[in-house]
């Protein structure tokens, strides 16, 4: 606990230090606000435009979380299929890699064309970007079960679904969480990238990516900064939420999830 408060204190002092540095750069080079707004101006922008900032944040969070959740469901389902036989893996696995290598910026306009701009398009983009790491990690976890463990189940004439539910899936949990952790980081980035193309269905209202584009076109640099801060914060929240779930579900038995509760 003492360690935690020391960590928090040092993190806070670094934060204050950075604010001071930021302010002094403006003073020293006498930069105009549209190039680099002062911390006070950014704070002001946050306060005065809080409702629209929260709306944007909410939309992006919804798209990222929705995409991540859908990718988790679909990804685990695909991995369960992949785990059935090496044949299936060999035939379809290359396509999940393709999913990972296709530049999202390139397919975003197509998605926009097919389903129009708005939350569902952005969610779909976040989903696509999250799918590959979840499929890859879950499949790995499902098939890396110790041969002797499987034999143990076979000795009791266990059915395929018993082996799956009582052995393969629990064994794959740490790998699934690794997949989710990787996906949660790129989910937010994916959603914001998506919003740059397909962010809004109504003029003036959209997620963070959309608002960033709008603010930069209007040269509202102070609000732009506020949006960047909000996006970073969102990424943080996602990351720690997943860390917490990982710890919550795995810490009693799995070593990797125990870093958090070590002194």
């Amino acid at each position, binding site marked *: 606990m003492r360690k935690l408060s020391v960590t928090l204190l040092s993190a806070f002092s670094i934060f204050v230090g950075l604010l001071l540095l930021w302010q002094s750069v403006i003073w020293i080079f006498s930069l105009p606000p549209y190039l680099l707004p002062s911390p006070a101006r950014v704070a002001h922008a946050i306060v005065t435009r809080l409702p629209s900032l929260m709306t944007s944040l909410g939309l992006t969070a919804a798209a990222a979380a929705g995409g991540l959740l859908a990718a988790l469901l679909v990804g685990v389902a695909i991995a369960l299929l992949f785990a059935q036989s090496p044949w299936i893996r060999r035939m379809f696995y290359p396509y999940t890699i393709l999913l990972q290598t296709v530049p999202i910026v390139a397919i975003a306009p197509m998605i926009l064309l097919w389903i129009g701009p708005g939350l569902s398009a952005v969610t779909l983009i976040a989903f696509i970007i999250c799918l590959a790491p979840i499929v890859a990690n879950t499949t790995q976890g499902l098939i890396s079960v110790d041969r002797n463990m499987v034999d143990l189940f076979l*000795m009791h*004439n266990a059915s395929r679904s018993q082996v799956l539910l009582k052995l393969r899936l629990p064994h794959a949990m740490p790998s699934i969480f690794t997949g989710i952790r990787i996906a949660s980081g790129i989910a937010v980035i994916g959603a914001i990238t998506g919003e740059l193309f397909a962010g809004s269905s109504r003029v003036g209202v959209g997620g963070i990516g959309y608002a960033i584009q709008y603010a930069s076109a209007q040269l509202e640099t102070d609000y732009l900064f506020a949006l960047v801060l909000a996006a970073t914060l969102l990424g943080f929240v996602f990351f720690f939420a997943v860390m917490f779930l990982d710890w919550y579900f795995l810490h009693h038995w799995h070593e990797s999830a125990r870093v958090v509760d070590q002194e």
Partner: protein
Amino acid sequence: MNTPLIVPAIALDQATKRYGIAKAGIATILESITTQVQRREFVSIIGPSGCGKSTLLKIVAGLSPITSGSIAIHGMTPQKARELISFIFQDATLLPWRTVRQNVVLGLELDGMARETRNAKVDTVLSLVGLSHVADSFPRQLSGGMKMRVSIARALATRPQILLLDEPFAALDEMTRDRINEELLRLREEQNWTALFVTHSVAEAVFLSTRILILAPNPGRIAHDLPIELPFPRTESTRRSSAFDRTVSEVSRALRSVSINSESKGDGQEIGVYPA
């Protein structure tokens, strides 16, 4: 041919195991294994690495079919006899997400036994191996020796007729291993199982067994079938007796003759001749 009144626990007749297909080349792993293991015998199998010891256990367990010959477990096919058999592997193979109690119950759970009945059985078997106080711990909280005892408890919970043990104590330190060996014999006094035990340690095989089979490699076959006449109950003092030492060196000599022949064929292997 008249059938004996009591069928042997394990009967192998010319059992042969091959892998591969004709075109790609066939490897004969086990060649014409013929032997009988009577009920309540404790038979150890030793032999150079790769000579087919694990394969033999898997055949008996019905996890791997033989290519030719015949096999009967209590007069049945191995698949039918599965519920009479428990398998204990080298690493304890516990499910890390289950507590000790939940691990021990696994077999009964898969067999579809009712919850109350199986919980009572688990309590009994846990106290039998002296693990009641860690029933709700997770495997990662236990030492290697304790994990192995959980594994033994899990195997015994289903009241098996036959125990198959594949180098179960190889990863344990010598003191823990000796203690668990004694415990295993004590459990055998109280229960009725037959054991087929694979090990690389001659001393361990001599201490535990009523009979030792020495396998020769390439292809795996029974080279020696040695009865171990040391009296039961065997304890720590058995290990210090001269009869024990004598038996260990006899078995070691037999094992060495088998291994030297195979070494000239060029496959390296380590033979564990542990000092008594």
